[in-house]
């Protein structure tokens, strides 16, 4: 699959869109609405679209910027104040990484399989707008197109070109599931990756975690203090996460129990992110939406990947793959082969 020319892949994306519209329209007969992607305020920012009719479906798009993990809307069904009524049936367009979130939610019992239909769509990687932000003033991008292994942008009426490897999401460069793991209908057949990217990521999705761990402990401490001094505590990271569905009970905002000060200083912000990571241990499916949603560019995915790496090393468990598995932190083994008791001599 890696040898396919880019031209064919672009054609594939366009063909996928036509097929997607058909699948969505057919699904409408089984559900109350389908959530997909539509054009946003500019070419770099597609926005979720709630399709209730064939007419709505014409506004669907599918391109290299459709990054939102739409599985985040699923828990709303069962939560108080959710927009959807419990009896409403939902259709959802999911990529491979998104499908892991769906499976994990099924595992946790927060959604019922008969209440939603999945339209899986195979993906070739998405462009990270934050990586573009470091290269061009994205607020004035007029056009963006993928051509021959590069992205070509028009900014302030001038052209700029970058190799795809530089601008795809890091998670895409090490993607293991380009085809969704769960679906009722599949668009685009088996997925293939447009680019495997730098060797380090292709071979090891936790490459960035390992690089970070090479730093000394004081360097790490300083790094996090610096980063978390920017946090606004807007909770965009929490609210976009499919697994942060505690709503009124989230300890970040409760007064009883009062876990977290409302002050927004580095120490408090760090504690928030640490306990969020702990609550997501073994559940996070590394979709990276938290990092994307953050208005001040905190490196949140690094934190959650570290947690998952630890859980994987200890229990051989990966979230969002098998809906019949039980989450590792609510079960135990009488003998834990990867946990050594500490010696005190």
């Amino acid at each position, binding site marked *: 699959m890696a040898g396919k020319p880019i031209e064919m892949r672009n054609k594939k994306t366009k063909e996928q869109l036509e097929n997607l519209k058909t699948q969505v329209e057919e699904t409408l007969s089984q559900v109350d609405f389908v959530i997909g992607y539509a054009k946003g305020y500019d070419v770099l920012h597609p926005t979720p679209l709630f399709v209730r009719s064939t007419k709505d479906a014409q506004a669907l798009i599918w391109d290299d910027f459709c990054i939102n993990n739409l599985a985040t809307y699923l828990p709303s069904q069962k939560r108080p104040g959710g927009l959807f009524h419990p009896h409403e049936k939902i259709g959802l367009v999911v990529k491979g990484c998104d499908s892991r979130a769906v499976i994990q939610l099924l595992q946790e019992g927060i959604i019922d399989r008969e209440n939603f239909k999945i339209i899986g769509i195979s993906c070739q990687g998405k462009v990270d707008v934050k990586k573009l932000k470091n290269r061009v003033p994205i607020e004035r991008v007029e056009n963006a197109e993928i051509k021959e292994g590069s992205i070509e942008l028009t900014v302030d009426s001038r052209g700029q070109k970058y190799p795809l490897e530089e601008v795809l999401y890091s998670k895409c460069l090490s993607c293991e599931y380009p085809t969704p793991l769960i679906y009722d209908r599949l668009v685009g057949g088996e997925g293939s990756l447009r680019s495997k990217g730098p060797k380090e990521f292709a071979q090891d999705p936790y490459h960035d975690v390992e690089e970070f761990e090479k730093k000394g402990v004081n360097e790490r401490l300083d790094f996090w203090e610096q980063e978390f001094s920017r946090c606004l505590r807007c909770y965009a990271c929490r609210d976009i996460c499919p697994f942060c569905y505690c709503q009124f009970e989230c300890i970040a905002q409760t007064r009883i129990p009062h*876990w977290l000060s409302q002050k*927004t200083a580095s*120490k408090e912000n760090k504690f928030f992110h640490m*306990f969020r990571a*702990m609550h997501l*241990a073994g559940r996070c499916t590394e979709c990276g939406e938290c990092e994307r949603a953050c208005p001040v560019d905190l490196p949140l995915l690094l934190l959650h990947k570290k947690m998952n790496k630890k859980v994987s090393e200890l229990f051989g468990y990966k979230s969002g793959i098998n809906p019949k598995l039980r989450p590792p*932190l*609510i079960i135990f083994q009488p003998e834990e082969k990867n946990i050594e008791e500490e010696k005190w*001599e």
Partner: protein
Amino acid sequence: MSRGNLEPEKEPVKNGTPPKIIAFLCNWCSYVGADMAGTTRLKQPEGVEVILVPCTGRMDPLFPMKALVEGAEGVLVSGCHPGECHHQDGNLYARRRLEVLKGFLPFMGFEEERFSYTWISASEGKKWQQVVTKFTERIKSLNGKKD
């Protein structure tokens, strides 16, 4: 608006002040074991504050995390030996959760010596003395390195 500095300056630790260590001990085994160490007059370091929990299964991984974030210099957790939990399997859940926490803390800049968990039965007063002495020494040498 330089954001990191909303806290008052910490008072410099005087030499000889015992490090602040919090120990979570389970009611049925470890607390009794630690108590036994006291009644049999085994020498123990100062500075350890004990918090009683009914079982290590009660240990929310956030307890040691919050203690460290708020300035505790070390956190210990101890419970019944796996397989001998007074509440059957509380410590078996705890083992998983605390091991995950242990692996995560250094990533955030807390030295790995600052958090440990162990299993001490009601008759193991000597082990308690060993653990708490060793742990306190580790913390002291960490603080020494910082200067």
